[in-house]
C-alpha cells in the first residue's frame, strides 16, 4: 500500500498527490512513469512521475480526471493509500547539455514536462518554456516551471493570460520573429497538441521529442497494448518510450488506439456515478 501524504487541487479535475513510495523515489528519473491500481477491482493505469524526493521517499503524481479510475483516485485523501504502484517505468528522458531547449506543454502534460524542464536546466541548458491552455486557470504549475526556465511564455485560447492563441503560435514567434536558435524541443500534452506541436516543429526545422500516453496494462513490455508505430516500426511505449521522436510517430494511428475502449470507459463511469453519486469535488 502506498500512502498519500499530501493532496492539492490544481485546476478543475486536476489533482496533485505526494505518495510514499521509497523504492520508486530512489530510482526515478525525469521522463519516467508509474503504473498504479487504486483498489482491488481496479485497472492498471500509467501516470507520469511529476517529481520525486529521494530523501523523504516520496513521488508526486499529477493527474486529470478522465474516467472512473482517475475519479476514484481523486476521491482519495491524505492518509488513504493507493493499492499498487509499480515503477519507475519506461526509459528516462535523454538529458544532456544541448544548448537551448524549447519545452512545450499543455493540459496535464505539463506535469510530465516539469521534471524534464528541471533536469535539463540542471544539466546547464538554456530553457525556454511555453505552457498553453484554454484559459489561465487551466495552465498548471506555472510558478514551478518558471523556477527552472530562463523564459516562460503562457498562451491561452481566450487571452486570459499571456499570449492569446495556441502553443504553436508561440513556437513560431520564438523561432521566426525572434530568431531564437533552438537545439532540441520537447512537447507534452494532449495528443492533438503533440501532433500539431510536431507539425510546427517540422516547419520550423526543430527536432522534437514527445511523451506518448497510450493505454497500458502491465507497463513492463509484457502485453503490447501500448504499441505505437514510430518510423514505420512497432515499439512498446512502456519500455521503448514513453518518449519518441515526434516527427516519426504515426499520430493518427496513435489517437485511434487511444479511443479503443471509449464505450467501456463510458459504462464504467456511469456505473461509478450510479454507485458513488456525481463526483462533486471535481
Amino acid at each position, binding site marked *: 500500500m502506498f500512502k498519500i501524504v499530501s493532496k492539492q487541487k490544481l485546476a478543475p479535475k486536476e489533482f496533485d498527490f505526494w505518495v510514499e513510495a521509497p*523504492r520508486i523515489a530512489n*530510482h526515478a528519473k525525469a521522463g519516467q512513469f508509474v503504473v498504479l491500481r487504486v483498489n482491488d477491482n481496479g485497472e492498471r493505469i500509467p501516470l507520469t512521475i511529476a517529481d520525486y524526493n529521494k530523501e523523504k521517499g516520496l513521488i508526486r503524481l499529477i493527474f486529470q480526471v478522465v474516467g*472512473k479510475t482517475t475519479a476514484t483516485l481523486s476521491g482519495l485523501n491524505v492518509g488513504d493509500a493507493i493499492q499498487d504502484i509499480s515503477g519507475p*517505468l519506461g526509459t528516462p528522458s535523454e538529458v544532456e547539455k544541448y544548448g537551448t531547449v524549447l519545452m512545450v506543454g499543455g493540459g496535464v502534460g505539463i506535469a510530465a514536462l516539469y521534471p524534464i524542464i528541471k533536469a535539463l536546466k540542471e544539466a546547464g541548458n538554456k530553457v525556454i518554456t511555453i505552457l498553453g491552455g484554454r484559459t489561465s486557470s487551466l495552465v498548471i504549475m506555472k510558478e514551478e516551471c518558471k523556477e527552472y526556465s530562463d523564459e516562460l511564455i503562457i498562451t491561452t485560447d481566450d487571452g486570459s493570460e499571456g499570449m492569446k492563441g495556441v502553443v504553436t503560435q508561440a513556437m513560431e514567434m520564438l523561432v521566426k520573429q525572434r530568431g531564437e536558435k533552438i537545439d532540441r524541443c520537447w512537447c507534452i500534452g494532449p495528443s492533438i497538441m503533440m501532433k500539431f506541436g510536431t507539425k510546427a516543429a517540422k516547419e520550423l526545422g526543430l527536432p522534437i521529442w514527445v511523451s506518448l500516453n497510450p493505454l497500458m496494462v*502491465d507497463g*513492463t513490455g509484457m502485453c503490447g497494448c501500448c504499441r505505437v508505430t514510430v518510423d514505420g516500426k512497432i515499439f512498446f511505449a512502456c519500455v521503448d518510450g514513453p518518449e519518441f521522436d515526434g516527427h516519426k510517430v504515426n499520430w493518427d494511428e496513435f489517437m485511434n488506439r487511444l479511443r479503443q475502449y471509449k464505450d467501456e470507459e463510458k459504462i464504467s463511469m456511469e456505473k461509478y456515478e450510479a454507485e458513488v453519486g456525481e463526483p462533486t469535488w471535481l
Partner: protein
Amino acid sequence: MAVTFSKQKTPIKEQDPQVRRSNFGEVCLGYTLEEGKIEAGRCLQCKTKPCVNGCPVKIDIPAFIKCIREDDMAGAAAIMDRYTNLPAVCGRVCPQESQCEGLCTVGKMKDYEPVSIGKLERLVADWKYAQKDLAPKAYEGEKKGRVAVVGSGPSSLTVAGDLAKMGYEVKIFEALHAAGGVLIYGIPEFRLPKKIVKMEIESMQKLGVDIETNVVVGKTITMQEIMIEYDACYIAVGAGAPHFQGVPGTTLNGVYSASEYLTRINLMHGYEFPKFDTPAKKAHKVVVIGGGNVAMDAARSAKRLGAEEVTVVYRRSLKELPARIEEYHHAVEEGIIFNWLTNPTEYVDNGEGKLKGVKVIKMELGEPDASGRRRPVPIEGSEYFIEADCAIEAIGQGANRVLLSTFPEMKLNKKGYIEADEKTGQTSVPGVFAGGDIVTGAATVILAMGAGKDAAVAIDKYITEKKAAK
C-alpha cells in the same frame, strides 16, 4: 496373473461443453476419492517406474499411487511434498501425455490407456488443501543465508519453497500486483482456477517465503542492490515479451497479442467487467493465430466472452500442433473452428481504424527446418478472407529486456535468453542463478519447476561453500 482392471482411464467428470463454453469455471471437475482409488488400482506398481523418469521433478509416482489405493491420502500428500511445491497446478497443466503417462507401463500394453497420473496428482493436492491441519511448517532453526528470487512464476515458487525448507530466508520480488506469474496472468481460470494458485502460494508463505509485489527488478530495485543484500539470487522472469508477426494492420483496434488478451481476462478479471474495471472486448468473430496452449487458451476464452465464431489459424497441421492434446479436444468440443495450414497476411481496416477481418493464405509443408518440423510454405494465389472483429496473435514470446538491459554483466545467448548451466542454473555472474522460460524460451510449467529444483540444490551448495570459505 490375468489383468482385470479397465483398459480405459477411469472417466472423470467435466463440465458439459455446451454449458462451459459460456462460463469461466473449471472444465475438469476432478476425481472423487472413490474414483481415485479405482484409478489408482490400475497402476501395476512396476519395478522399473518409467513414469518417474518422465517427470521433470522426479515425483515417486508409484509410491503416492499406492497410498491412494490404501486410503492413505496423508501419506500420498507427504510423498508428493518431497518433490513438488505446486502439485495442484501440475496435476492440472502438465503435459502428462508426453511425460509420466507417456511412459507408463500400462499404456504400453495393447489397447490400454496409461494410468491417469495427472488427475491422481490433482486429487491428492486438492485433498491436501482441504485439510486444515496439514499446513506446512516454517523452518525454525538459524537461517543459513538470504536468497532473492526475481519473478514469482512456477520456477521461482519451486526454488523459493525448496530453499525455505532447507532453512534459507527467501524473498520473492514480483513485478505485477499479484504473485504467480504465468499461472495468474496467462493460464485461464477454466484450466487453472486462481484460488488453486493462491492456495499453493499461501502454502509457500507458510513455509516462510516472503513475497513483495510491485517490484520491477532493474527498475524499482537494481540487480546490483540485490547482490549486495543477498547471498545469492535466482532469476526466473519468464519469456514475457510478445512477438507479433508484423503483417500490415497489426496496430488496428481489435488486434491483440495473446499476452494482452489473456492478461486482461486472467490477471485483471476482464471477463467480469464492469465489476472489475479492466474491460475485455466482447467480439462477434474472433481469429486466433497460433497452435500452442496459449492459442487454445485465447480461443476458448474468446468463446466464453460470447464470441459466436472463433477460428484458430495455424500454419502447420494437426499433427504438428504444439498444444496439449487435451486442450485441443476441449477446444473442439467447445466449437472452436480450426483452419490448418493457414497463415495471416494482413489485418484489414474497416475504414475507421477497427479490424474488419483477416486476410490469410494457405500453406503447404516443405523441407524440415531447424526445429526438425517441416517448414510451412505459402501457396501462391490461395489467399482468402475471414471476417473478424478481433484477432489474437499467439505466436510465441521472447525475452523481456527490462531486467536484462540493466544488467550487462549477464551473458545471454543468441536469442537473448540467459545463458545458464543446464544442471545448476549457474549464470555467468557468480551467485546469480537462472531458470525457466528466461533460459529456455517459452516452455512448460513443469520444466520451469524442474529448473527451480536443480537450482535450489545448487544455490544451497554455493552459499554453504562460500560461507565455509570465509
